[in-house]
């Protein structure tokens, strides 16, 4: 399919924000960049994963660093191309297509600038199916692919190639480089073949995000409930087979602190008309949603706090006392839920002391 209009990019941004589970940053600036790229290029080609040749070289793209920094230190525009060109030199091969390393948040739109500059398509898939805080949480690491060679580039044109033996070390070096480059940098990592992508990537996540964003937009335009529309659109993708509205209320308390070097916190939401209370723990993304002592959803399932009137996603940085919100949860793609994957992205990987339980199961027992 082709993306011809800014409206479709806006849909993608809206859907990607939802899939970020509260993380990945507000995609607004990424959207402006993609719109500018669309204006230059005319249209983008989004190809299904199944149509990629097995021997094609694919490059996942994304930004690493703090969303709060990225709204001041804006991209130069050359970061992605510089990184991709270097990767081509290293691989001795042309890159055939790009994809987002993570669909959730601003990175869902990251590959479009590269696609515009290089004149190559974006593949309808990603490496996380949502947003995660660290590079080794990508499905490609879970499935044993190497993040390297990876190329980190910054607005000033500086470039670093990372070659490590393992992906955890790669993440540590990349994060440290991002800090020394001013808190935000572009990264091309996990270069992979078409065959590897078909075996491991989260398929259809870009078009799923577009479908979600479109459903919200169209529902708003005709005045029907955007949350119903979101749920139907998401479940129709098959990739996110369950979507539930967990809670409706207003933020009455917000605690933020840093723990183990990461921004963590807890938001408390009171139901309208004395309708119970929900607490959500977050570490960059929303991780666990609990109501009256009972857990209703947990990572890697998606937990997103949205403005209850507009269905705009509120990222964890933007949570504020008094906001009127709905909490929407969605089942993560199945490939993130097998026991091996859960050891990388399940609750215990985030320091929680319980095992994963699926959102649809947790809420089934609630209703019974």
């Amino acid at each position, binding site marked *: 399919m082709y993306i011809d209009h800014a409206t479709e990019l806006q849909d993608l941004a809206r859907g990607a924000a939802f899939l970020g589970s509260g993380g990945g940053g507000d995609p607004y600036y990424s959207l402006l960049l993609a*719109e500018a790229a669309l204006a230059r290029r005319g249209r983008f080609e989004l190809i299904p994963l199944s149509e990629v040749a097995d021997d094609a070289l694919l490059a996942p793209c994304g930004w690493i660093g703090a969303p709060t920094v990225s709204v001041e230190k804006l991209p130069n525009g050359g970061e992605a191309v510089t990184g991709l060109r270097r990767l081509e030199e290293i691989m001795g091969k042309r890159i055939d297509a790009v994809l987002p390393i993570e669909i959730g948040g601003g990175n869902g739109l990251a590959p479009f600038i590269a696609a515009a500059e290089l004149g190559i398509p974006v593949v309808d898939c990603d490496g996380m199916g949502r947003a995660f805080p660290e590079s080794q949480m990508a499905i490609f690491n879970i499935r044993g692919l190497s993040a390297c060679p990876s190329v980190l580039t910054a607005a000033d044109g500086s470039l670093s190639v990372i070659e490590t033996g393992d992906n955890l070390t790669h993440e540590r070096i990349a994060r440290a480089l991002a800090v020394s480059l001013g808190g935000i940098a572009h990264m091309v990592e996990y270069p992979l073949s078409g065959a590897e992508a078909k075996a491991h990537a989260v398929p259809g996540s870009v078009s799923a995000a577009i479908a979600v964003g479109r459903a919200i937009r169209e529902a708003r335009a005709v005045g029907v409930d955007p949350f119903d529309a979101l749920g139907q659109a998401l479940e129709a993708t098959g990739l996110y087979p369950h979507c539930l509205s967990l809670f409706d209320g207003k933020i009455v308390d917000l605690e933020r602190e840093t723990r183990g070097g990461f921004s963590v916190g807890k938001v408390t939401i009171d139901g309208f008309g004395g309708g119970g209370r929900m607490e959500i723990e977050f570490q960059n993304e929303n991780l666990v949603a609990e109501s009256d002592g009972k857990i209703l959803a947990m990572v890697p399932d998606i937990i997103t706090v949205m*403005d209850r009137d507009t269905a705009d996603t509120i990222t964890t940085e933007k949570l504020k006392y*008094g906001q009127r919100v709905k909490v929407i949860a969605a089942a993560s793609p199945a490939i993130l839920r097998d026991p091996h994957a859960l050891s990388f992205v399940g609750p215990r990987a985030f320091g929680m002391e319980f095992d994963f339980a699926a959102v649809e199961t947790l809420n089934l027992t609630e209703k019974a």
Partner: protein
Amino acid sequence: MRIGVDVGGTNTDAVLIAERRVVASTKQPTSPDVSTGVTAAIGAILADAGVSAGQVSAVMIGTTHFTNALVERERLDRVGIIRLASPSGEALPPLTGWPEALARQLEGATFLLPGGYEVDGREISALDEGAVRAAALDCRAQGIRSIAVSCAFAPINAAMEDRAAQIIADAHPDASISLSHSVGRLGLIERENGTILNAALATLARHVVTSLERALAQLGITAPLYISQNDGTLISAADAARYPVLTIGSGPTNSMRGAAFLTGVDDGIVMDVGGTTCDIGVLANGYPRESSIAVDIGGVRTNFRMPDILAIGLGGGTRIHVGASGDEVTIGPDSVGFRLTQDACLFGGSTLTASDVAVAAGKADFGDAGRIPSLTPSLKSAILDRIATMLADGIDRMKTQPGDATIIAVGGGHFLIDDDLKGAARVVRPDHASVANAVGAAIAQIGAQAERIVDYDAEPRATALEQMREMLLARVAAAGATPESVEIVDMDEVFLSYLPGRSAQLRMKAVGSLADDMKRADAPLSETPHVY
């Protein structure tokens, strides 16, 4: 004695306040030139109260004039746009995301120049003074006299913008210079947008402020003139002439602060029932709770702080739809709006409105009750129940404290709010509610805000907080507040996600009272600010 004025699109309201009481108030039509209406309104209250111009200690004006100019896209200057951030940001040039027509109208020339800071304070690149000078000369040659300067991380370090302003002023002495650190918060695109809008208003702002000053002089008033800002605090007339964009959202804030003052309620919920909507806002420490949603002005995204207002579709003119069976009731959301006095049944029209039902139920007394179609008692109570439910739901959505809230009911349709409304501990209906905006302007204080990104591993949190507090207190006092009145009223701390370490975005706001005859414009503010 203070004078507060609210210049709205239709009416110019003025109040005279002495010793915390409204001594006189008036409503006059707004004049196209602003100052004629203001002169008439101030003249009327001085005459009414028998007060001489010399007794006035300060004049505070809130105006929608600049907002209207931006929305109507009239009387705007072409702007020379300078951004100091290159090579960062070249992918998102200024005016990205603007409505095309407005961008074309305002863009004089754009310069992406080296400069800007990193989050840790290093320079992205050094300021190229020659390039800034050349840009200023280029603007001068093209006859562009309004210049907007934005620099990456300027809210944290303003030095590069200040230096650029000196260079521009030397090269182009006629230029009005708008600096982003004076306009907005972190978020370069939104702050730059606000700075460009500000620059576009430069000529109009000078003109309006000058004519207001002349109007006061003609009335014999020598007291200082202040203009209301978006957050309910004041800036001097001279500052407003340079930074008019800071005043464009003052209306709702002044209305809520006026309601707080008139009732003595500092923590509660203001319900302003108009013809079409009921606007609900929360007062905390006498100030409106702020919204976190990006503010769109004339189609341009900005990050100004505005009150968090929930508008529900219920006002005095809201249509009541009764189904064919006679028991199916729908309230609105359509309204007869300003046509209430023609279309509503009690004014001889044929549309059943919320006002008709309220008058029929004896909750209000205006119009001709005899013209209201007879409603069965059960239908009447069904309609009133539905209205009460909508209002109670609105309170429930906005309140963040357990228990019932104090409700301040204002606006022409305040009679729709029952004294025993669910969720209301009590309902207060202030006198002079129709001029709450002008009252809010009159009682305003001096304020200042600051923002930093602090690495607590490098600088202890307590030190950082204290340093910011001291700096703000000094700034508010320097702007004219009595030092002992200055307090921190808001603080916000958000840790940076996706970066290791303990860096936080820290924001603080301080206010203080002017040193005129008002001892304290407000009840005492809480000692400890909220930390979210």
